[in-house]
């Protein structure tokens, strides 16, 4: 993979065999090779997969809705309006309330949007923390052998031999349930996967010639690690990052479902589903909409990840 600075430069290959006098060849057919930037080829292959694009569009739409929530709906997410829910009965979807109302008369469409905000925020920030912890540790473990590697491996064993779902539940039950705690817990318990991934990649790349060459050229170790080896590991990492975000969103909604995640009146999809369980017969839409939103978000993330993976090494498929 060439990482030429000049994109789309047309570099005739003639110059390579300069030993022989340049031949006068009118048919340039065999030798012209447009050299595209690495990422543009990836993106071109990415667009060939319809589900990749579909995922991108859906995710973009969800993020837009989450951010532009105040503009999209006139209601606030915690505005109680008893007229909209006479006798505590949630109302079906109608013109003013797109997704209907919940038992306190709050507009359900607004709550779904703001719930999206919470879930996406938790998903992205939890994975960000995981990456922040995981990747540096992976680099250190992978590159500098010796005690650092051993220490980190034992640390990974410690975390991986603990049942993470169990511990996430435990810590959340003990801490005061709030968004920050959920992010912290999901972040702290998920990073071992990335460390293991980066470390194994580093181990295989360390022996490669280009690293020896860089070392021979006298580059400082830090530049070798971050400028040469790391870019190689990032691209295959994208898939597990997108799946990780999906996973974080799912576990957040699972926690809220058990009442350990977000507390009222902050809307979260998991809590809305838990609340809606009571009305499955009389008001089924209360549980359908948030469930759909969770599935759509996680699905689009998975599709993007998969399409990207296939774009990186088409041979794999």
């Amino acid at each position: 993979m060439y990482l030429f600075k000049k994109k789309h430069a047309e570099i005739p290959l003639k110059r390579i065999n300069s030993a022989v006098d340049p031949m006068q060849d009118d048919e340039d057919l065999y030798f012209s090779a447009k050299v595209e930037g690495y990422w543009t080829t990836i993106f071109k292959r990415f667009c060939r997969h319809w589900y990749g694009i579909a995922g991108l569009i859906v995710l973009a739409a969800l993020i837009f809705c989450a951010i532009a929530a105040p503009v999209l709906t006139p209601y606030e997410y915690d505005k109680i309006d008893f007229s909209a829910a006479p006798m505590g009965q949630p109302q079906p979807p109608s013109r003013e309330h797109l997704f209907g109302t919940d038992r306190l008369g709050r507009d359900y469409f607004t709550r779904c949007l703001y719930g999206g905000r919470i879930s996406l925020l938790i998903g992205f920030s939890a994975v960000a923390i995981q990456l922040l912890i995981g990747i540096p540790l992976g680099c250190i473990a992978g590159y500098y052998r010796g005690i650092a590697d051993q220490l980190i491996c034992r640390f990974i064993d410690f975390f991986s031999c603990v049942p993470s779902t169990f511990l996430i539940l435990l810590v959340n039950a003990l801490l005061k349930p709030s968004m920050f705690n959920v992010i912290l817990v999901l972040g702290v318990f998920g990073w071992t996967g990335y460390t293991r991934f980066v470390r194994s990649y580093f181990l295989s790349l360390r022996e490669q010639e280009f690293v020896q060459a860089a070392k021979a050229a006298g580059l400082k170790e830090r530049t070798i690690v971050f400028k040469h080896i790391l870019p190689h590991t990032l691209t295959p990492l994208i898939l597990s990052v997108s799946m990780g975000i999906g996973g974080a969103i799912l576990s957040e909604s699972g926690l809220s479902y058990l009442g350990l995640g977000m507390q009222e009146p902050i809307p979260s999809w998991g809590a809305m589903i838990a609340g809606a369980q009571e009305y499955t017969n009389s008001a089924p839409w209360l549980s359908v909409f948030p469930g759909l939103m969770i599935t759509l978000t996680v699905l689009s993330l998975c599709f993007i990840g998969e399409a990207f993976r296939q774009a990186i090494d088409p041979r794999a498929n």
Partner: protein
Amino acid sequence: MSLLEVNKLNIGFQGGDGLMNVVTDLSFDIEEGKAVALVGESGCGKSVTALSIMRLLICPPAHMEAESILFEGKDIQQIPERHMWKLRGNDISMIFQEPMTSLNPVTTIGKQLTETIRQHTGCSKKEALAKAEDMLREVGIPEPKQRLREYPHQMSGGMRQRVMIAMALSCDPKLLIADEPTTALDVTIQDQILELIADACRRRKMALLLITHNMGIVAEAADEVMVMYAGQIVEKASVQEIFDTPMHPYTNGMLRAIPGTAHTGEEFYVIRGRVPSPLFFSKACRFAPRCDHACERCHKEAPQLQDIGGGHYIRCWNPIKGGNANE
């Protein structure tokens, strides 16, 4: 009547944008007990040809059709897949290039050897083990009994190639196809393996189709040479003639490119350009764009393989007459 006769073999691959024709109208034949070398740059379709004879190509991507492939007079294309196993390993057997991955890493050498023997001869386990031990001794592996219980990863590359050869010869095939047997090995081992193959063929009067890109090996082991370029045979002759009077510019260029002590101080000769991808094969002579002797006709009309005397076949409008390799 030749042992193996291949007429108008065409092999194509289902690429992203249509069928890429890798081998076009290839025909050749191999006499009994003769050693024929198939030479060419990598990517000219030689190992694909070997695989298609044994019908080992996986058909969805690959696409193979031939007028006829006669083995001892019978067209093996008609044999249904269910019965192909009778032919493979028994009449025709094959050695591959990469010894490191050609043996199953999780089963013992013994099992992989006896598997073949019992499949074809149907003898008991004990007999098969004894036969396997003899074969290993024949290919020169020390203490064969112990080796039978070992796993492939406990052996060196050369040793594994010997096991492959033992496996191939275990059922006394009539034709042995060796697909670049020595490329993956280092030089010292190469000679031993080549010698081993040559002896085996001579002793067992077994025909050999040796596929390689290294002219040195051809000189040692082969009786007849076929030079392939871009899916076609461009020159076919006995070993002696090929080395003495390479008529086709491509063969000529190849032989000149061999660095020898005779040319000290001179610049290496390199055939310019690269092998074109099958999509861009020109209608006319495929070597024309890279040929120094290309005349006007070469770019217009496709030459055919003709015999210009003494069994020397050429596919060229403007062959180099009497040209000596190191002229």
